[in-house]
């Protein structure tokens, strides 16, 4: 198992290198640059800026310099747009915020989704099932950019219960309740639907029928024999879903002014802020690799048939 983990991490290195070079080149091939303005800059002014940021160098040299900076100094360079900030400092400020509300959202989505799906499957075709399906379908079709403004109208404008934006850390839930609801709902719905169908399948399998025939209590059957195998498809979905949640969402960051990294990711692409774009891409790529590995380890733990 340990050898397997090391082998996987070894594979991650070339994957990351390809990701960096590929994104870097693609990014620079996009028309326009960080300093393309509606009112064009005088040529010499633009030349001075390009010289300062090394954008006057040939692309291969920029790519190599960039890689060197990351590998040797773990320095992603300065932001071309937020000129007071380095990429490292933007990520250092924004990532803890998305990590906080993203992790809470993940926990909420899993807890509610798995419970809802399991209950619906166990009480198949009952009113509980219809309710659970109804809730998850509704949640699925409510995109977060619709939910976010509705939540703020209800909880900030009408009830005056929660602040309409900002972020003050884990210990100030008033600021993260609405972001968590808006972010976790659709994930929760997907998990619930997935859990329900996989649970239904498991409940019809031979070993469950055997357990029932033996006269085992329903509760014991579900907890001990059905839940673990039913979770397998959900877990494979969780890897990328979790990365999606902890790297934030541009919608959540925009509507709730959280200062999270999702907004910077999208903005950096639109602004051609190459350095920020690359920094967040690398972060995202690294997290995806780690979480996929975690999923595989979980698999082995849950499913005795899987051995690495």
């Amino acid at each position, binding site marked *: 198992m340990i050898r397997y983990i090391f082998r996987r991490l070894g594979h991650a290195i070339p994957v990351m290198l390809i990701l960096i070079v590929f994104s870097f080149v693609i990014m620079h091939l996009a028309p*326009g640059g960080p300093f393309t303005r*509606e009112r064009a800059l*005088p040529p010499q002014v633009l030349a001075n800026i390009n010289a300062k940021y090394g954008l006057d160098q040939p692309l291969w040299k920029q790519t190599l310099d960039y890689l060197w900076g990351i590998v040797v100094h773990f320095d992603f360079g300065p932001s071309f747009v937020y*000129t*007071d900030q380095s990429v490292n400092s933007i990520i250092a400020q924004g990532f803890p915020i998305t990590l906080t509300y993203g992790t809470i959202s993940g926990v909420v989505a899993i807890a509610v989704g798995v419970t809802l799906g399991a209950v619906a499957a166990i009480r198949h075709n009952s009113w509980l099932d219809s309710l659970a399906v109804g809730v998850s379908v509704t949640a699925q079709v409510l995109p977060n950019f619709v939910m976010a403004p509705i939540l*703020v109208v209800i909880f*900030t404008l009408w009830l005056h219960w929660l602040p*309409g*934006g900002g972020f003050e850390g884990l210990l100030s839930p008033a600021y993260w309740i609405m972001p968590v609801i808006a972010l976790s709902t659709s994930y929760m719905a997907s998990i619930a639907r997935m859990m329900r169908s996989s649970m239904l399948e498991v409940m019809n399998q031979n070993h469950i029928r055997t357990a029932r025939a033996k006269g085992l209590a329903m509760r014991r059957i579900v907890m001990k024999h059905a839940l673990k195998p039913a979770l397998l498809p959900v877990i494979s979905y969780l890897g990328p879903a979790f990365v999606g949640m902890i790297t934030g969402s541009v919608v959540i960051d925009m509507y709730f*002014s959280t200062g999270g990294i999702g907004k910077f990711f999208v903005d950096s692409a639109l602004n051609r802020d190459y350095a920020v774009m690359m920094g967040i891409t690398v972060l995202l790529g690294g997290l995806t690799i780690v979480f996929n590995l975690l999923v595989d380890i979980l698999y082995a733990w849950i499913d005795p048939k899987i051995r690495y």
Partner: protein
Amino acid sequence: MKPNPLLALAVALSFIVPNASAATVAPGDTLAENQDIDLWLLDDIKTLDPQKSASVGDSDAIRQLFEGLYSQAANGDLVPGVATGHEVSADGLIWTFHLRPEATWSNGDPVTAQDFVYAWRRLVDPETASEKASALTDLKVKNAKAVIDGKLPPAELGVRAIDAHTLEVTLDQPIPHGYMIASVTNTNTFPAPRAVIETYGDAWTQPGHLIGNGAYSLVEHRIGQKIVLKRNPRYRDDAHTIVKSVTFHVINEENQALTRFRAGELDVSPIPSGQYPRLKEKYPDQVYKKPRACTYAYVFNLSLKGPEALKDVRVRKGLSLAIDRSIITDNILKGGQIPAYSWTPPSMAGFKAPDIDYSHWSQAERVAKAENLLKQAGYGPDHPLKLTISYNTSEAHKKIAVAIQQFWKAIGVETRLENMEWKVFTDRLHKHEYEVGRYAICAGVDNAIDMLSFFKSTDSLNPTGFASADYDRLMNDVLTATDPNIDYDQAEHTLADKMPIAPIYFYTSNGMVKPDIRGFPVQNVLNFFYVRNMYRVVK
């Protein structure tokens, strides 16, 4: 150059701007206990460095943290800042500013002429790589161009400290008085604290490092969330400053900002597109509207890469005439925008709006004339004109483009709409890879020169490819003209005559402000505001 008699008359005349204190509490107003205010920012600030700042949000914050030679009162009038007055030499080339001795930085050091010299050199220094370096070439400051081009060291810039409180600026050629004065209220010309910048480098603008000479100091900047400022007790006019702290909240979503304003979390709010009439009716005491010095236009590609048809002035005129501006302002935008038939916003300081003939015609007359012009140019039902309109992806631009497509269809022009992401669009525009494009410019200095110099061929910054020696000459003459409005008028008529662009509308700024806030909105058309002019009254 012929000496200018009027300019000579102004020689050695000292210009002293009227002294007005910061926030003057109006009679009948009782100050509220709570003097903390919450403002709205569409996008986070990019930098708090005065010389590097280039966006609206940056200069909104910098104006509170620093103070330039001159400043503005709530009504937009020019008031002394660090300078109390200035003189201009007989030839108009030497400007001497007198700085007040009591001005200090927030760490207690005096603000001196050397701080301005350092800042202005820094602005043009290629090392700084400021986007706004050309602000000093626009002002014709001696050697500014050579320093930017790397041909002379920054120390050769035509600016020096005669003593600690006397700043001397040398120009290559005279420029209008109003242009210089309006320019020194721009953040790029504000002083810079040399010691702090040399100690911390690019990180000097972080909370804890930054020192300023403005009415407020920086407490906190949480990127993507908010910027918090508190009163600077060392500000030279702190005695007249009332508001204790200011928080700029970054909210990218205008509807969200409006909801939070209504919930009482913000003191000002934007008005999302199209909602002005509804909000005006519902909250008449909170909604405001005022002119803003920006122009929205459609540009025609006259360059070699542009379509043949657009090289014919009759076609360009026809296309412009066919646009029914009032439908765009009254039925699409609905925010009090003003139909435009010329380029420079009429609200700009000292500018006399030109009288453009077709602005008086009825739309039916314009359309008839447009059809006629296109026919003369050889276009008609059997040989229709086909064009592509490009714009950057946005709901408002799309609505306008669709309307214009219809207006042009009515005169037999077939158009295709093409929308692109912002950077792609801007890049194509400047590379002349388009046919007809949407365009908008806001004045950076409250002076018509700022708008009109845009069409000079030497700057080659305008995306139309329009070049005219007559126009260039006009723009050069205006710098020393006794009545610049004569030249402005001619320049505007040249543009109307050659029609490299079809002006569509002049902007308004509208928004909402809580009824207990005084000193906002400001009257100046560039939207420069100073929190020290504001206060909150008892409700």
